[in-house]
C-alpha cells in the first residue's frame, strides 16, 4: 500500500516537473525542474520497472550462491557488501563520457539531450547494464566476448571482440583530443596536468613501499598534492618567464599524451596507472556529490533555448547532422553505453554476494551516471548560449578568427549574442589567455562548473575552480588513456599469440613493446589528425566514437536477447529487444548518413571529395594545403571504419536471429553456459525461495 502511494506521488511530481519543462518554452527555466523530473523518473524506473524485470524476467533467486561465494579466493572473487559493490561499479562506469557527450549535444537545445538521458537510461542503459550483470553472474563472471562466443557461436564472438578493440582505440583518441584542447596555450592547465604524473609516482611509491596497500591514505595524500598543484599553477600563470615553459601548441601536446600513454602501458601498473586511478576514484565520488549539492543550492536558470535551429536543419557547428539520429549518437554514456557491458561482465559480477543486489548495482549505478549527465547538461546550459558556442566551435567553422566567430555566432540567433569583450573578460576570470575554440566539451563544462562552485562555495576563487574542474577531467582521461592502452595491448597480444605463440606471453618484453606500440600508433594517429584539423577534430571523432559505442551496446543487447530466448523467455524478450531495435535503427541511420551523405559537413567521403576539389582548385591557404592529404585520407578511413562498425553490428544481430530461430524451431543450438544451481551458505541469506 505504502509502495503504491509512494509510486503515485513520484509519478505526480515527476509528471508536474516534466510538464513544467515542456510548457516553459520562451522564458528561461530553472534547473530545479530538470533535477526534480530526473530524480522522479529514476526512482519510478528503479522501483517499478527494474523490480518487475528482476522478479518476472530474471527470476532472481536469493537462495542461489553467486560466483563470489562459490569461487571465493579472497581476491577478485569475494562476496562484498551491496553498497560497496555499488560504489565500485559506479566508479568503474562513470568517467569523462557522461560529462562530454551531453555538453556537446546541447547545441540542439537543452530539451532533446535531457529527454534522451532520462528515457534512454531508464529503458535502455540501466536495463542493459543490469541484464548483462545478471547474465554474467549466472555464468561465473564471464566477459561479454566469452558469452557471445558461448551462446551465439564463433562468428558472433569474434565480431564482439573485434568491435571492442576498435572502440578502445577510438575512445582513447577522442578523450586524448579533449584534454589536448583544454591544455593548448593554457600554461595553468598544462602545468596541472603535467604535475599529475610525479604526484601519481609519489603516491604509487607510497602505496607499494611505505604503506603497502594503504589506499585511502595514499589517495588523500595524492588529493592534497593535486590541489596544491592547481594552486601552484595559478602562481606560475602569473610569472612572465615560467608561464612560457608550459605554453604549448596542440601538436607537441598530442606528442606528450602519446608518449605518456606508451610509457604508462609498459611500466609496471603500480608506478603510474594504479595510483592515479585510486586518486581519480576518490576525486570522482567527491566531485559528483559536491556538484549535486551545489546545483541544488544554487539551482541556476537555464539560458539555452529548449530547441535550437540546429536540431532541425542539421547545420550544427559542434557536430553536423539533425537531432535524429545524432542526439542519440552524441550522448552514449549517461543514456546507453555499450562499454558498460564490459564492466558489468568484468570485475563486478565477481563481487556480488547475492543475486538480489543486481538491481541496485546494475540499474542503480547507471541511473546515477545518467544523473551525472544531467548535471553536465545544467553546467553547459547555464552559460550564455553565445559563450557556449564560442568555446565549443572550431574556428575553422566560424570564419577563422575570434572576430569572425562572434559575428557569425551572434548572427545565428538573437539569443546567441556574444561579444569579444565578453569572451575576453570570461577568459581573464578563468585565468586563460583565450576560451575561443576550446572544443571537446571539457573547457565549457569547466566554466559552468566553476560558476556553480564559486557561487556556492566562494565567489573569489572562480579561476581556481575552473582549473580544478580541468584537472578533475584530465585525471579520468589520463586513466582511460593508460588503462585503455593496456587493455588494448592484452587484446593485441591475445590475437597475435594465435599466429605466433611467443607474442601471446603477456610478460615477454618484446611482445609488450610491440603490442603497446601498435595500440598507441592506432589511437595516436587519430589524435594527431584531430589536433591538426582546423575544425577542431571533435566534430569528426565524437560521432565516430558514438557510433562505435552504440554498436557495442547493440552487441550487448543482442547477446542479452539471444540468452533470454534460449532460456525459454521469448515473451519477455522485448525488455532488451526494445532498446536494441532503437539503437540498431539509430546506429544504422547515423552510419548511412556519415557514409553516403553528399553534404561535406556530414558525410566522411563527401568531406574528402570536397577537400580534394579545393586542393585541385588551389583555393587553400598554404598551411591547410600541407595538412590536406592527411585530412583527406583520414576522412576516407573514418568512412570505411563506420562501414565496418555497421557490418560487425549486423553480423552479431543476424547470428542471434538465426540461432534464436533454430532454437524456436527445436533445432540444436549452442548449449546454455549458465552455471548449475548451488544453494547459498552465506549468513543472512537463508531466505525462502522467491518462486
Amino acid at each position: 500500500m505504502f509502495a503504491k502511494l509512494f509510486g503515485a506521488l513520484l509519478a505526480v511530481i515527476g509528471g508536474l516537473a516534466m510538464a513544467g519543462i515542456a510548457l516553459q518554452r520562451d522564458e528561461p527555466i530553472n534547473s530545479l525542474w530538470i533535477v526534480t523530473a530526473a530524480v522522479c523518473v529514476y526512482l519510478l524506473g528503479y522501483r517499478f520497472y527494474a523490480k518487475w524485470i528482476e522478479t518476472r524476467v530474471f527470476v532472481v533467486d536469493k537462495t542461489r550462491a553467486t560466483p563470489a561465494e562459490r569461487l571465493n579466493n579472497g581476491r577478485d572473487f569475494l562476496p562484498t557488501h551491496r553498497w560497496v559493490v555499488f560504489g565500485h561499479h559506479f566508479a568503474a562506469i562513470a568517467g569523462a563520457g557522461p560529462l562530454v557527450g551531453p555538453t556537446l549535444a546541447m547545441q540542439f537545445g537543452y530539451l532533446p539531450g535531457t529527454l534522451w538521458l532520462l528515457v534512454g537510461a531508464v529503458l535502455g542503459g540501466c536495463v542493459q547494464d543490469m541484464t548483462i550483470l545478471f547474465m554474467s553472474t549466472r555464468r561465473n563472471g564471464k566477459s561479454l566476448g566469452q558469452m557471445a562466443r558461448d551462446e551465439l557461436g564463433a562468428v558472433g564472438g569474434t565480431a564482439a571482440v573485434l568491435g571492442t578493440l576498435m572502440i578502445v582505440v577510438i575512445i582513447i583518441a577522442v578523450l586524448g583530443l579533449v584534454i589536448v584542447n583544454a591544455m593548448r596555450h593554457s600554461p595553468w592547465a598544462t602545468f596541472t596536468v603535467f604535475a599529475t604524473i610525479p604526484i601519481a609516482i609519489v603516491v604509487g611509491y607510497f602505496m607499494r613501499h611505505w604503506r603497502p596497500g594503504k589506499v585511502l591514505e595514499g589517495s588523500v595524500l595524492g588529493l592534497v598534492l593535486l590541489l596544491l598543484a592547481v594552486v601552484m599553477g595559478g602562481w606560475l600563470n602569473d610569472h612572465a618567464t615560467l608561464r612560457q615553459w608550459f605554453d604549448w601548441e596542440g601538436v607537441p601536446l598530442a606528442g606528450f599524451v602519446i608518449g605518456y600513454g606508451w610509457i604508462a602501458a609498459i611500466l609496471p601498473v603500480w608506478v603510474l596507472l594504479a595510483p592515479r586511478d585510486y586518486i581519480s576514484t576518490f576525486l570522482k565520488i567527491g566531485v559528483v556529490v559536491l556538484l549535486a549539492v551545489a546545483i541544488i543550492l544554487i539551482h541556476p536558470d537555464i539560458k539555452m533555448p529548449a530547441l535550437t535551429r540546429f536540431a532541425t536543419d542539421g547545420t550544427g557547428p559542434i557536430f553536423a547532422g539533425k537531432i535524429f539520429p545524432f542526439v542519440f549518437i552524441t550522448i552514449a554514456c549517461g543514456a546507453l553505453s555499450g562499454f558498460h557491458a564490459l564492466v558489468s561482465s568484468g570485475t563486478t559480477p565477481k563481487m556480488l554476494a547475492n543475486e538480489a543486489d543486481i538491481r541496485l548495482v546494475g540499474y542503480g549505478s547507471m541511473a546515477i551516471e545518467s544523473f551525472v549527465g544531467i548535471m553536465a547538461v545544467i553546467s553547459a546550459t547555464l552559460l550564455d548560449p553565445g559563450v557556449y558556442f564560442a568555446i565549443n566551435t572550431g574556428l575553422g567553422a566560424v570564419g577563422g578568427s575570434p572576430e569572425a566567430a562572434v559575428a557569425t555566432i551572434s548572427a545565428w540567433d538573437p539569443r546567441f549574442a556574444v561579444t569579444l569583450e565578453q569572451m575576453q573578460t570570461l577568459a581573464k576570470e578563468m585565468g586563460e589567455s583565450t576560451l575561443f575554440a576550446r572544443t571537446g566539451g571539457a573547457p565549457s563544462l569547466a566554466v559552468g562548473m566553476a560558476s556553480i562552485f564559486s557561487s556556492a562555495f566562494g565567489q573569489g576563487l572562480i579561476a581556481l575552480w575552473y582549473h580544478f574542474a580541468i584537472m578533475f577531467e584530465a585525471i579520468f582521461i589520463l586513466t582511460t588513456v593508460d588503462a585503455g592502452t593496456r587493455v588494448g595491448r592484452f587484446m593485441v597480444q591475445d590475437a597475435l599469440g594465435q599466429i605466433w605463440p611467443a607474442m601471446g606471453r603477456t610478460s615477454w618484453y618484446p611482445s609488450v613493446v610491440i603490442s603497446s606500440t601498435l595500440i598507441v600508433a592506432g589511437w595516436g594517429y587519430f589524435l594527431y589528425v584531430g589536433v591538426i584539423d582546423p575544425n577542431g577534430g571533435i566534430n569528426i571523432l565524437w560521432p565516430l566514437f558514438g557510433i562505435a559505442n552504440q554498436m557495442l551496446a547493440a552487441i550487448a543487447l543482442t547477446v542479452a536477447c539471444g540468452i533470454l530466448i534460449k532460456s525459454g523467455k521469448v515473451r519477455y524478450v522485448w525488455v532488451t529487444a526494445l532498446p536494441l531495435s532503437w539503437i540498431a535503427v539509430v546506429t544504422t541511420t547515423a552510419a548511412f548518413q556519415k557514409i553516403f551523405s553528399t553534404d561535406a559537413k556530414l558525410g566522411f567521403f563527401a568531406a574528402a571529395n570536397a577537400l580534394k576539389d579545393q586542393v585541385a582548385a588551389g583555393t587553400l591557404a598554404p598551411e591547410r594545403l600541407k595538412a590536406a592529404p592527411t585530412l583527406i585520407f583520414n576522412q576516407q578511413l573514418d568512412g570505411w571504419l563506420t562501414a565496418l562498425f555497421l557490418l560487425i553490428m549486423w553480423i552479431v544481430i543476424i547470428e542471434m536471429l538465426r540461432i534464436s530461430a533454430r532454437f524456436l524451431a527445436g533445432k540444436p543450438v549452442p548449449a546454455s553456459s549458465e552455471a548449475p544451481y548451488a544453494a547459498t551458505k552465506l549468513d543472512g541469506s537463508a531466505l525462502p525461495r522467491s518462486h
Partner: protein
Amino acid sequence: MDATGTKHVRQFLSAGLSLLRGVTGDDAYEKYVAHMTRTAPDEAPLSARAFYQAQMEQKWSCINGCC
C-alpha cells in the same frame, strides 16, 4: 548533543568510513587475510606488499573501467 545522538553520529561516520574503505579497496588485504585464516589456516598468507602487487597486476589485466 546527548549520548544517544553522539552514538548515532559515530555509527554513521564509521559506516561511511567502512563504505569508503570498501569502495577504494583499502580493506582488501584485511579481507584476504581473513579469508586465508578461515580457509587455509596452515598456509602463510602473502605479505601486504606482495598481495598489493599481485592485486594490481590482476586488476589491470582486464577491462575494469569505462570512459
